[in-house]
C-alpha cells in the first residue's frame, strides 16, 4: 500500500498561541517500505502518525492511503479505514488488563468480523501469537507478562485484521536495548516476509539506519 501526504499541516491552539505540530509535510511511501521517523521531542512525530492513522484530523493538506484520499470529516469512513488498513503499536503496549494474551490479539477482530466465526478468529489469533513466539503465553493476563512479551503481543494485535500499514510510535521506548532489538527484528521480519508497510517513530537512530529509510523531522518539518 502506498502512503502519501500532501502539504500536511496541523496546528494546535493553546489559548491564543499557535503551536505548529506539522508544517506542510510531503511524504511519499512506496509499497512495502519501512520508514523510521526521528526527531527531537515535540517535533511532531506522533502527530504525523496519528493523522496518517486516521486518529487525528489535519488542519490543512491531504493524506492518500493506497491512492484514496482520506475524508477526515466522515467519521464512519475513518473508523472503516482504521479497521482495515491500519495497525497501531504504542510505546506503552496498551493491552486490555481484563483480557488474556490471545483475547487481546483477537480484540480488533471483534470490531471487524468479516464473516469470520469465533473459532476462526481464535485460530488466526493463535497463529499470530505463534508468529511472535508467544503461543505458550496465550492464556496469561497482561499483568503476568514482561514488557518485551507485552509488546510482541501488541504487535500481534496490530496484525489482527491483516492491515497493510503498521504505525509504531516508539515501540521500543519502554524496553531495554536487547528486548528492543528483538522487537525491531520482529518488525523487520514483518516488512520483509509479509510485505507490511511500516512507519516507526524511534530515538534509536543506529538500529533504525540498518533496516529502514530514515526521515528526520524538526518543528513539524521534514528535513531533506
Amino acid at each position: 500500500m502506498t502512503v502519501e501526504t500532501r502539504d500536511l499541516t496541523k496546528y494546535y491552539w493553546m489559548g491564543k498561541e499557535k503551536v505548529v505540530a506539522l508544517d506542510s509535510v510531503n511524504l511519499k511511501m512506496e509499497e512495502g517500505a519501512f520508514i523510521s521517523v526521528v526527531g527531537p521531542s515535540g517535533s511532531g512525530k506522533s502527530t504525523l502518525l496519528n493523522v496518517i492513522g486516521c486518529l487525528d484530523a489535519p488542519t490543512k493538506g491531504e493524506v492518500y492511503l493506497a491512492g484514496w484520499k482520506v475524508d477526515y470529516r466522515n467519521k464512519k469512513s475513518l473508523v472503516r479505514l482504521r479497521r482495515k488498513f491500519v495497525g497501531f503499536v504504542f510505546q506503552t503496549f496498551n493491552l486490555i488488563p481484563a483480557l488474556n494474551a490471545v483475547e487481546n490479539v483477537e480484540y480488533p477482530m471483534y470490531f471487524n468480523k468479516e464473516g469470520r466465526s469465533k473459532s476462526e478468529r481464535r485460530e488466526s489469533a493463535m497463529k499470530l501469537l505463534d508468529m511472535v513466539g508467544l503461543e505458550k503465553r496465550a492464556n496469561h493476563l497482561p499483568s503476568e507478562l514482561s514488557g518485551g512479551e507485552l509488546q510482541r503481543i501488541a504487535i500481534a494485535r496490530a496484525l489482527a485484521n491483516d492491515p497493510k500499514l503498521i504505525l509504531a510510535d516508539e515501540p521500543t521506548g519502554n524496553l531495554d536495548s536487547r528486548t528492543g532489538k528483538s522487537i525491531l527484528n520482529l518488525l523487520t521480519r514483518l516488512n520483509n516476509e509479509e510485505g507490511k508497510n511500516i512507519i516507526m517513530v524511534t530515538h534509536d537512530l543506529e538500529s533504525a539506519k540498518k533496516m529502514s529509510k530514515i526521515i528526520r523531522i524538526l518543528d513539524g518539518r521534514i528535513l531533506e
Partner: protein
Amino acid sequence: MKELFSLACRQLGRKKLRVFLIVLGIAIGVAAVIGVTSLGEGIRVQAVDQIKASHDLTTIEVSAGVEDGSVTLITDSKLKAIEREEHVLFVAPYVKDSYVAQNNTYLAVKGITSEYRRVQSNLQLEIGDWFDEGKKSNEIVLGYDVAKRLAVVEDLGLGDEFTVKIRLYGEESRLKDKPAVFKIAGILKSAGDEHDNQVFIDIKHAKELDEKDSYDGLFVKVDDPAFAASVRDKIEGLGLTAHSAQDVIDEVNKLMVAITLVLGFFSGISLVVGALMVVNTMIISVYERTKEIGLSKALGASDFDIMKMFLAECVIIGVIGGILGDLLGIGFSVLIDLVGKPFLVSALGGELGAGLQLGSITVVTPGILAAGFAISVVLSIVSGLYPARRAARLNPLDALRQI
C-alpha cells in the same frame, strides 16, 4: 452478541465488590416494590375470595331498566328472550307489592316461582308446606319475622285465613282497595336477610291480584360463572338493568389495583437510589477505562461499538439485580406475611380477620416477578445510557493520552 456479553462479564468480574454493591442496591429497590405489590395483590385475592364465598357468581339480578327517564319493564317477552339465551339455566321472576292486614299491619308480599326458591336456597320451611305452583290457590308462606308479628298483632297462626286489602291505582289515579283472603300454609325458618320480613305467594296469583302483566325483578341463573358477564351484557342489551356479584368483585379489583399501583410507585422511589448508583459507577468506570476506550477506537471500534460495550455491562447488572431482587422480594413478602398478618388479623377482628387468618396476606405472582425483573433491567440500561454515550464520544487521541 454472546461475545459482547462475555466481554462485559470479564470487565465486571474485575470489580466484583463494586458490582455486588450496585446489584444489591437495585435488588433492594426491586424487592421493596415486589413486597408492597404482593401485599396489595394478597389482600385483593383475599377480598375477592371472601366475596366469592358469600355470593353466588352464577346468579344475575335483573330489574327494570331506566334510561333517559323512560322505563323498560320486564315483560313476558323479555323473560322469554332471556330464557332463550345460551348458558342460562333458568329464570326466576318475582313481583312485589304490599298489602294491609285487618289491624293495619303492612305485609311486604312477593309473588314467586319454585325457581326463586332454587336461587334463594336459604328459604327453608319451619312448619307447613309451600303452595302448589301455578294452581290458583290463596295459600301463602310467611317469613320468620312476619309470622311472629302476625301472631302478636293479628293473632294469626298456621292454617288460619285472613283478609287483606290490596291498594290498586286505577284510572286517573283513583285509589281502589280490593280485598283478598289468604290462608297461611307455611312459615319459614329465619333466613337472616330481608326475606324474614316478606310474605310469599304464587306469582300467578300475585299478578292477578295486582292486575300487573310485568315483573318487578328476576334472577337469572347461568351454568358457569365464566359466562355471567356475557349473559349480563345480553340482558343489558334488552334495555334492562342487571347486577351480579361480579360487579362487586370488579369494584374491589379496581380499587385494590389502584391502591397497589400507588404504593408500588412510592416504594419504587428506592429504585431511584439504585439507578443513581448505576449512573455513578458507570461514570467512574468510563473514567477508569478512558485509555482503554481510546485504544479500542484506535483498533477499529466505532462509537456504537463502545456504547454497546458499556450498555452490555448495564444489562448484566440489571439481570443480576433483577434475579436477586426477585429472590429478595419473595423473602420480603414472606416476612410481611409472617409479621404483618397477626397484626392485620387483630386489627380487623371478627369475620374479616378470621378470613385473613386462613390464607396468606401476600401473593407473589409470576407477573409481579416479571415486572420486578423488567424494572431492574430497564432501569440499569436507562441509567447506563448517559455514561455509555459519554464513553462513545471520547476523542480517541485524548483518551489514549491519559495516564
